[in-house]
């Protein structure tokens, strides 16, 4: 793919939805306390800095090149191998959390193996299609996801308690690091994979796509985190299996106290499917570079 200008918006939305991935299902982490929101904000800004620092390095490493000698070639093959492995680990983690959610909440009476096979088949199929398919799917998926997240946030607003995130005392550096690290390592660091995907598709990583993708994804994910924490408080949210799904389930309508959590299932499906497809796409590209 080399029509860079046409896919700027697609890339931004793909990056945003990749960031959300499986994080939207599990945040806040089990170790979250009253300072978790501050930890998230801190992790977001740190990752913004890290992404822009690493951008030229990643551009250099992952765009196609001619190797000067066999030693250099060996180093790059090792790098591509490690990248493929990290993508596989990230894809597995995302898939496991999604399958866990589906088997416990959506389809408890259906065999988890069947759910897994169907989902993996769809993800593999999507990743083996032309990459424009993933970009186009990301475009409309992110719009729908953002609308759903914003709508649920607004509908839950009247039950929010601001003192659930208010800081009555500044945290110590140890407390802040304890809350920041999980977000940095499990949510924002894997974002580098989507930058590598960009490099594989477009032979360069755009600054605009990186900034906007990370920001949009960060803000949307922040809304889901706030939705849970403002409603339940950090300690109770952290103890739930699927905090955001539980938060949405508290939105009720009608005279029969009907729940609306069904509308949230698309959010998880789209985010996880796209993330896994992108990871498989990266693995494919790395294998091609190793053996090509």
């Amino acid at each position, binding site marked *: 793919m080399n029509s860079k200008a046409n896919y700027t918006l697609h890339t931004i939305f793909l990056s945003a939805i990749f960031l959300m991935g499986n994080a939207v299902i599990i945040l806040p982490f089990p170790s979250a306390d009253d300072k978790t929101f501050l930890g998230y904000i801190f992790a977001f800004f740190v990752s913004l800095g890290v992404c822009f620092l690493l951008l030229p390095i990643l551009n250099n490493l992952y765009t196609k090149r001619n190797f000067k000698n066999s030693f250099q070639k060996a180093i790059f093959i090792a790098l591509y191998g490690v990248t493929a492995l990290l993508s596989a680990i990230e894809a597995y983690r995302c898939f496991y959390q999604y399958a866990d959610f589906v088997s416990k909440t959506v389809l408890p009476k259906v065999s988890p193996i069947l759910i897994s096979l169907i989902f993996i088949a*769809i993800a593999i*199929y999507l990743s083996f299609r032309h990459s424009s398919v993933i970009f186009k799917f990301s475009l409309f998926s992110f719009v729908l996801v953002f609308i759903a997240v914003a709508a649920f946030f607004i509908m839950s607003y009247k039950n929010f308690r601001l003192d659930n995130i208010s800081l009555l005392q500044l945290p110590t550096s140890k407390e802040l690091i304890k809350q920041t690290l999980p977000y940095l390592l499990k949510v924002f660091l894997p974002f580098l994979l989507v930058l590598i995907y960009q490099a594989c598709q477009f032979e360069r990583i755009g600054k605009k796509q990186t900034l906007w993708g990370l920001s949009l994804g960060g803000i949307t994910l922040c809304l889901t985190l706030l939705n849970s924490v403002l409603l339940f408080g950090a300690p*109770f949210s952290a103890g739930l299996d699927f905090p955001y799904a539980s938060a949405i389930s508290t939105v009720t309508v009608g005279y029969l*106290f009907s729940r609306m959590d069904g509308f949230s299932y698309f959010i998880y499906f789209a985010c996880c499917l796209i993330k896994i497809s992108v990871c498989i796409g990266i693995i494919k590209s790395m294998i091609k570079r190793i053996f090509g």
Partner: protein
Amino acid sequence: MKFEKIFIFLITLILLLTLTGCTGGVYRQPDQQYLVSGIAFKRDKSRIIAFAETVVVNTESTEQGVSRHIFSASGNTAEESLLNLSGKISKPLLFDHCGLIAVDKDLSSEQFSQVIDYCKKNEQINLAAYMISSENTDILFDCEPVSTLTVSYDLLGVIDRVEFLNGIKFHNRYYEVCANKLRESRCFFLPFVLVNKGEYILSGGDVYIDNKMVDSLELTEGALYCLLTDNFSDGKFEDFEISDSKTRFECDLREDTLFITLNIKADLEKGDYAYLSDKIERTLENLRGNTDIFGFKDRISRKYRNLWNTVKDNYNFYYTNAKIEVKYEF
């Protein structure tokens, strides 16, 4: 291309067959659905009696409309009593529409815990279900619903109305009760519903600590309690009308004595300031006791970490001997 079409066709077929419930008797839609609108639990010595108010919907004939039924059964635990209840009807009870969880104020701490644990385990029960306290849980659902299908849904409206008119913020949703149980004070405030001559009345609130009811407050006292604990929104009670209230908490430890100051800032739109401040002081003295029902320990642990580390192991001693002062900015 042909292979892709066959593949897509096969995947779609598998999805349709497996995910739409076409697997046999267990998933066959029953002719009647029992939607639980509210559950109540009463203590019977070491056993628990569970009551369920249900809306029975006839799925095969919508002309027959809906009807309301109350069922009860007992068991050694909350879960067992609900299972026995379901067994009596020999139909699955659907808890997706359960909006009310009523607990008998005489439930033991362990029994209350069982109720909470069961509701968490049963993922059908909405985390936003309202919890109430009552001494008449056995006859609560025998009342006639006034404005909705069921007494349970009526009570949700009553609680919302009291919160709106009287300014009392109960924070009595199931998830709020669970969240409060995780705080240092483990204190929560449930609306108290009384049944008198076939009619239900929300007459005040019950304060619980560690799953046990410790104090019962009437509505006015409840409103003053909420003012003291910064849980009051705009509202009226007795001759007073208060808006924009905020209670700031300050604490200091001097010579082994806790000095607690509550700064109540509000717009007193109606009522006498001196009379209100006198009522607040008397409420504080009456409710103070030897147990911190105001949740001061939550404030101390969050705002004064070093002080909390000093007092936490012997908090009751410090609380009992604490000097509490209330300042007003009306």
